[in-house]
């Protein structure tokens, strides 16, 4: 076993502990940020150094160190970096517990990195719990009634989802006798279809796995926690939930369904149908429910449910096409990258605006275009990207995912998705409309701290870059999607 390959994760663990210790001794809270960021940077550097080479899985084939995992680790570290940038001004609201806050962000990032790398049911569960437990605490960090309530809801519903997931895992283990994904695949492929069909345990197990994962990625009908938690949580954590948690969840789903249940083809068709079904209700419900929202965080919550729906279109495309077709996987990876940048940008802009307004109501955003032109411009770009209009990244992301679905003969699904995109334009553009064309209540300029600006510039540049020259990112995504360890 090669412990060196575990250095990125170890670094994060060490730095998380370091932050907690430092917090006891220093009054300089800025130091905590610096330490956390350096932890992320070191971890990312080590991960980057491993990029492109192939390594054996570590810990008895429990953790893969392939390019898929490395790509997601980098993505998650990047998102965590942006979240910390976004938190610096926000953490003034709970000045006393900053050490815990940053440590928990690092620990949940660690959990998510593990989620992207695990190839074993038991390790998957541990990674999920590590992530979730840190997030439960982070959601309740504001300690007001809304935040506490949402944290408790998240915890209880998360527990239910965990239980269902465990049940599903148990069924699959009982059916195959294996916990390692590659081994599970070998057992299934050795069985005859009749054997599998005569025992519904495997399919029931799959449904329960999808339920457990669906909770993480906010797929309808397992999304009920999303609006309440998004509204109650500290805004940087909402961003973190909507982006990183979703990315890690999808990384997990991609790996599990691709490497354990990708073959035989009739099996993948079966879970493909489930994902197609989830995609349809996810997109439709998310978009329709977003329309009457008056709170921008809640609106983005529903929007993220709809975005998960689009991503599930990619999963359906994967199930419906032979495993060798790479476009399904690479388009999901591209979409996740684009979505991560876009949503981070949108949330950072919201933090910048809402901090000063002390309100998350869309009506209060009236005339922001005059008061904070650059932030409003960035938010506009991100919303345009969420609709999926060029030149923003969202357009290319949808283009790739829909192409994958069309290639898998899922034209009907694409038509539903396109109609949904049109519906979504209504509520995204309403914010744009209010910001630029409405008359502001006051003329006072809104200034934003440099850290937020930096985060905003970074994410907007990324959005534009992916939108204008998608070829390079798509190459990376294909590279990440191709190297899977079975």
């Amino acid at each position: 076993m090669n412990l060196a390959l575990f250095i990125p994760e170890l670094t994060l663990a060490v730095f998380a502990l370091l932050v907690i210790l430092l917090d006891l001794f220093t009054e300089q809270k800025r130091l905590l940020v610096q330490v956390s960021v350096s932890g992320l940077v070191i971890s990312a550097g080590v991960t980057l150094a491993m990029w492109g080479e192939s390594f054996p899985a570590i810990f008895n084939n429990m953790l893969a160190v392939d390019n898929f995992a490395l790509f997601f680790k980098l993505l998650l570290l990047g998102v965590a970096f942006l979240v910390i940038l976004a938190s610096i001004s926000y953490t003034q609201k709970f000045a006393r517990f900053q050490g815990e806050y940053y440590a928990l962000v690092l620990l949940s990032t660690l959990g998510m990195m593990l989620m992207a790398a695990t190839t074993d049911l038991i390790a998957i569960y541990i990674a999920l719990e590590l992530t979730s437990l840190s997030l439960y605490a982070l959601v309740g960090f504001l300690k007001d009634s809304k935040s506490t309530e949402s944290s408790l809801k998240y915890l209880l519903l998360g527990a239910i989802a965990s239980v269902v997931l465990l049940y599903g895992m148990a069924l699959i283990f009982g059916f195959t006798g294996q916990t390692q994904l590659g081994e599970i695949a070998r057992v299934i492929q050795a069985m005859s279809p009749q054997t599998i069909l005569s025992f519904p345990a495997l399919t029931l197990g799959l449904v329960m796995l999808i339920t457990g994962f669906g909770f993480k990625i906010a797929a309808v009908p397992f999304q009920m926690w999303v609006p309440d938690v998004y509204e109650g949580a500290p805004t940087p954590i909402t961003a973190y939930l909507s982006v990183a948690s979703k990315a890690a969840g999808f990384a997990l789903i991609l790996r599990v369904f691709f490497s354990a249940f990708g073959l035989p083809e009739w099996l993948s068709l079966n879970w493909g149908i489930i994902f197609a079904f989830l995609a349809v209700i996810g997109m439709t419900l998310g978009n329709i429910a977003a329309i009457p929202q008056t709170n921008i965080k809640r609106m983005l919550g529903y929007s993220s449910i709809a975005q998960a729906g689009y991503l599930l279109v990619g999963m359906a495309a994967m199930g419906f096409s032979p495993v060798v077709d790479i476009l399904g996987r690479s388009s999901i990876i591209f979409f996740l990258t684009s979505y991560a940048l876009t949503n981070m940008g949108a949330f950072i802009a919201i933090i910048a605006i809402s901090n000063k307004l002390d309100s998350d109501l869309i009506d209060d955003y009236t005339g922001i275009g005059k008061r904070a032109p650059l932030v409003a411009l960035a938010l506009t770009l991100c919303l345009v990207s969420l609709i999926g209009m060029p030149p923003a990244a969202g357009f290319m992301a949808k283009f790739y995912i829909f192409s994958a679905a069309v290639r898998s003969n899922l034209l009907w699904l694409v038509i539903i998705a396109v109609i949904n995109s049109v519906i979504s334009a209504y509520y995204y553009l309403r914010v744009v409309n209010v910001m630029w064309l409405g008359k502001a209540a006051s003329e006072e300029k809104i200034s934003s701290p440099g850290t937020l600006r930096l985060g905003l510039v970074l994410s907007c540049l990324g959005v534009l870059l992916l939108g204008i020259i998608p070829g390079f990112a798509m190459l990376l995504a294909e590279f990440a999607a191709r190297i899977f360890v079975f």
Partner: protein
Amino acid sequence: MITPQFIWLIFLLPVFSFIIISFFVRPFVKAESRITGYILITALFTVLALSIWTLLSVMAAPHHEIPVPDINWVVIEGGVTIHLGLIADSLTAVMLIVVTLVSLMVQIYSQGYMHGDPGYHRYFAWMSLFTASMLGLVLADNLLFLFVFWELVGLCSYLLIGFWFHKPEAADAAKKAFIVTRLGDFGFLAGILLLYLNTSTFDIHELHKLAITGALASAILTWSAIGIFAGAVGKSAQFPLHIWLPDAMEGPTPVSALIHAATMVAAGVFLVARMFPLFEHSTEALTTVAVIGGVTAIFAASMGLVMNDIKRVLAYSTVSQLGYMMLGLGVGGVAIGIFHLFNHAFFKALLFLGAGSINHATGTFDMRLMGGLRRVMPWTYATFVIASLSIAGIWPLSGFWSKDEIVVSTASQPVLFSLAMITVFMTSFYMFRAVFITFGGDYRGGSQNEHGGHGSRPHESPKVMVTPMVVLAILAVVSGLWNVTGHFGTFMGHGQTHSFTYGFFHPFTQPLPWISLILAGLGILLAYAMYSKQWLSPEKTGNFFKPLYTLFYRKYWFDELYENIIVRVALVKGLFGSLKQFDNQVVDGAINGVARGTIAGGRAVRRAQTGQLQLYGLFIGIGILALVLVLYFAG
């Protein structure tokens, strides 16, 4: 030899200039600062140097083309592939010189002309985008991107013509330009789609190859070529879509100079030249180009005879000269049409800058209020006369060389030939009519109502405005000499070269140049007789030809025809009326139904979101059941 990176830079520098000006300078720097102008001028200066480098490299390159590797923009394995690439051939190289040189001169001039305007930064931001779009258009190697830049050029012209949007005439003119050119764009888009459906490629080189090898059916070739030409008719203001250009002078005068010389209207001629192999292999399409060009040339010139607004005279002269270019393309080929575009760009830009300079001094564009400016504005006068001589086609100025070639090419077709000849006469008449009214006689007062009025005494414009005019005047004299030896023609792919002395005096051994020179001379003489010496009274002459005068002055009632008959009756009452019915009853009904349904759905979902934990948990259970059912029934 220039490398592809630098060719990319030609397009990118003005884009950067646009980004820097609109996102970094305009929000933070006061309008009095001149920095934005300098940013764009620096960018364009560099671009001009790069363009000259490109031209020299293309001249030295085999087949006069530098290969530029494609960038894959969107690639889906086994599916759609869209390339992003550039062409660097002789046509592009010449256009690059025209665009960057004229744009640079116009921007330097604008530093003086736009000084103190509250929209100063906005002006240079749009100017950057305008130039960038035009450069993108001439560099694009596939029709898809060419179309994108084509539309961007249209958008920028809309923004710049309507630059003083608070003036209703400017806003209307901008709308008119946008809508009328849009009509042609329909044809262009249809042509592109027709080609794509039949060849599944947007790549210009491949389309050329298919046209040359005859792989395209001739009907498709003809129709797509005519579609593309329709786009060119709109952009280059050819008959019958010429009506927008004369109104387009509502924008700042330097904008007119740029639109008329290098960026907007040249795009149409360029497009035909770029897709020339398609036209070449379809006699019908090529004849259409020649006929429309010839008709436009004389048609627009006739209206130029009677206008009183100096910019309108120039505007009709542009339409007429563009007709010449189309005629040249139709009868002679790329080299002849583009050579006229090349020469025309310099003297027409100069004429507009001159008009702007006059306006700067007198505060009006109405020639009846000017007069006597020769003494107070010697530089403007001298350069304006040089440009007028050049456009009239007087030997050895640049206009002579390109116009002569077009006239010679039409010699075998009597109708087109006589159109071209009459236009020569008209051109020299209306240009010198303008010269004599504006600069001759005594000063008649001017006006202070419009932009730039400076009190009672007119004066010469500042150096920053005069210098670009002098540079352009030099070019208006010498730019035609490029083809005296036939080098321009061979560079563009046909003709042969000969010695300079031979080429320089050769026209005098032929009858045709003599005829056209005599006609031009007669035009000048008539203008001199009527407007300088008043041997012939303009009023009497006008009355004598009353019906014709009115016909020209009312622009053949084309505006009225379009507005009253086509727009008001056919479109508004007929088509739009029935569409409105359809829209109100069917579409609105459906949309409102969907909208009501959606909103009701949204409310229902919101009601389900009660915040009660038990219910949420229950939903997870229901969800699992639903999935099992889906699998049971569909799996």
